[in-house]
């Protein structure tokens, strides 16, 4: 847990605050994204937590190792920083040290022995989808995306419960950023860190945050809430403008396919008799159906017009499915995938490629209408 209580920061010689009377609480195990226009005090707010900057007024409490809330201003800054993961956009890897030594920075400060540091570093690079022999390389021998991953790994080296991330994926191209975001979200499901995540990109804030803290210039808190609530009920005009006119569409980001799909779709077995299959499809009033094997693994699909008047087994008439969607994909990505392949409906599969459901554009449409209705209904 990270708790801001009426925190104000005025830089020496400045007349107006960079962070103004900020209060919010990040619950343990959640990601809170801080978002706002350039110069609104995001970085300042974050650095107040590990005391790279000291607050002018107010208090920040973090949950320490003994599970007690302690005021950071009463802690030794060096010890405090060693207990909090810190990751910045410019990464700041040490160019004269190997990846192993870079990741081992805080462990070494805490006097871990060499074997333990190496073990942990191997664990982390593997977690970051990189080969273990990268540990012997120097930062300049890695690509930008790989360096970014090492930056994240370095911040997680001692498994700190609280992490501060300042635009951690800001310096890489959109495709790699998307990959890193997804990787990190998957990881977060296991590691359950309490994270302050600074970004200037509202889409990233929505995607990564369990909570979003929207700041305005001058360090004023405009709204602190879950992404769904911020999109549904922006607190004021500033927030409304900031999240953008397409906020209804943005809400598609927040809903996962498994929440709206038809989880009992009409399926055919590969070993089914063709006549029987045609009967099944006629009865269900569908023109095509997905086909699975005994283990529910997706094999492809068949069209009713291809089967009519034929004999034999369904698997003889199989067409390969052009795409399938994972259970945890959000509706926006699902919709875009469906538009690309021009399918009316797409199979939803789990990690083992087993069919778990079916989704079509109508379901996505309905989900948008539903959430709009809820939002408007509540507002009146």
């Amino acid at each position, binding site marked *: 847990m990270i708790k801001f209580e009426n925190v104000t920061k005025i830089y020496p010689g400045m007349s107006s605050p960079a962070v103004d009377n900020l209060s919010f609480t990040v619950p343990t195990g959640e990601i809170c994204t801080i978002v706002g226009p350039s110069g609104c005090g995001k970085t300042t707010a974050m650095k107040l937590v590990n005391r*790279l900057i000291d607050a002018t007024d107010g208090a920040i409490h973090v949950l320490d190792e003994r599970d007690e809330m302690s005021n950071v201003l009463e802690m030794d800054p*060096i010890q405090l920083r060693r207990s909090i993961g810190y990751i*910045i956009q*410019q990464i700041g*890897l040490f160019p*004269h040290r190997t990846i192993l030594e870079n990741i081992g920075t805080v462990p070494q400060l805490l006097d871990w022995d060499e074997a333990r540091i190496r073990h942990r570093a191997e664990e982390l690079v593997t977690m970051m989808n990189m080969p273990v*022999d990268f540990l012997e390389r120097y930062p300049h021998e890695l690509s930008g995306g790989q360096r970014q991953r090492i930056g994240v790994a370095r911040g997680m080296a001692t498994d700190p419960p609280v992490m501060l991330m300042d635009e951690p994926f800001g310096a890489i191209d959109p495709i790699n950023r998307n990959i890193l975001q997804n990787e990190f979200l998957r990881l977060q499901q296991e590691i359950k860190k309490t994270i302050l995540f600074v970004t200037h990109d509202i889409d990233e804030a929505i995607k990564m945050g369990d909570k979003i803290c929207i700041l305005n210039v001058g360090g004023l808190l405009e709204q602190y809430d879950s992404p769904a609530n911020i999109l549904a009920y922006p607190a004021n005009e500033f927030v409304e403008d900031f999240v953008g006119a397409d906020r209804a569409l943005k809400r598609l980001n927040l809903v996962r396919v498994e929440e709206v799909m038809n989880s009992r779709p009409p399926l055919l077995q590969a070993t089914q008799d063709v006549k029987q299959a045609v009967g099944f499809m006629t009865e269900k009033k569908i023109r095509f159906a997905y086909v699975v094997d005994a283990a529910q693994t997706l094999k492809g699909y068949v069209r009713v017009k291809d089967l009519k008047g034929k004999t034999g087994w369904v698997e003889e008439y199989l067409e390969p499915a052009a795409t399938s969607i994972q259970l945890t994909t959000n509706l926006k990505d699902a919709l875009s995938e469906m538009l690309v392949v021009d399918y009316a409906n797409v199979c939803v599969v789990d990690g083992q490629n087993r069919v778990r459901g079916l989704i079509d554009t109508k379901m996505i449409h309905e989900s948008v209408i539903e959430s709009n209705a809820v939002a408007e209904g509540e507002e009146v």
Partner: protein
Amino acid sequence: MKEDTNFWQRLRRITIKDMMSWTVIPVLMIIVSVLVYNRLLLTIEPGSMEANMLGSYEIGFKRVGDAITEHLRLILVSTSLAIAVAVPAGILITRQGFRDFSGLILGVANVGQSVPSIAILAVFMGILGIGFKTAVFALWLYALLPIVRNTAIGIEEVDPNVIEAATGMGMTSRQILLQIELPLSFPVMFAGMRTAAVINVGTAALGAFIGAGGLGTFIIAGIPLMRDSLILVGAILTAIMAILVDFILGKIQDRLVVPTASA
């Protein structure tokens, strides 16, 4: 696996051009030295006026050897003393609280540097007397600036993001200095030491004016006698030494390059 590729890469990188660059200069310098020795020095008759000017003992290999040793000793002592003082000073002016003054300090030092060395020698001869000590002092003074300046620049040039990451992870300022700033700035610092040493090779030739010996001895002996050959011996050998010192330190510097591609 990685060791291997590195080894082959390194081997492949040693081209004929490299081998030439490592040997051509030293070989050339040795040839010139031998020529100088044969053509200029051996023409001096033992017992002649020139010989007397050069000192009581015989002209020849031993006299040249002694002059070179004296010269090197002047440089070695003055440069080491300068490093011992200038590196801490350079570090100091990059610390918080001193940063604002670093420009001023370097400015003053810059002005000091532009005072002709002969004037410095003359002034301090009056205070410290003649001989080795005065020469070392003057050389030391001259070597300070390039080392202080490069130390400070080297540290200031360290990527601020690297420092921020180090601070944010809980390194103390001492740890940051020793583990991050110094290693990363060492190549620049070393370049300053190289400059200082090379400047000192030339300046040390003036040491002979105040009886500190060295290669300047030949020049000083040659001037009143109007014997160009003697002056040339001193001048050429000094130049050769400067080139060689620069060359050797340059080769060492090449080895120090840290992987600096922005990270």
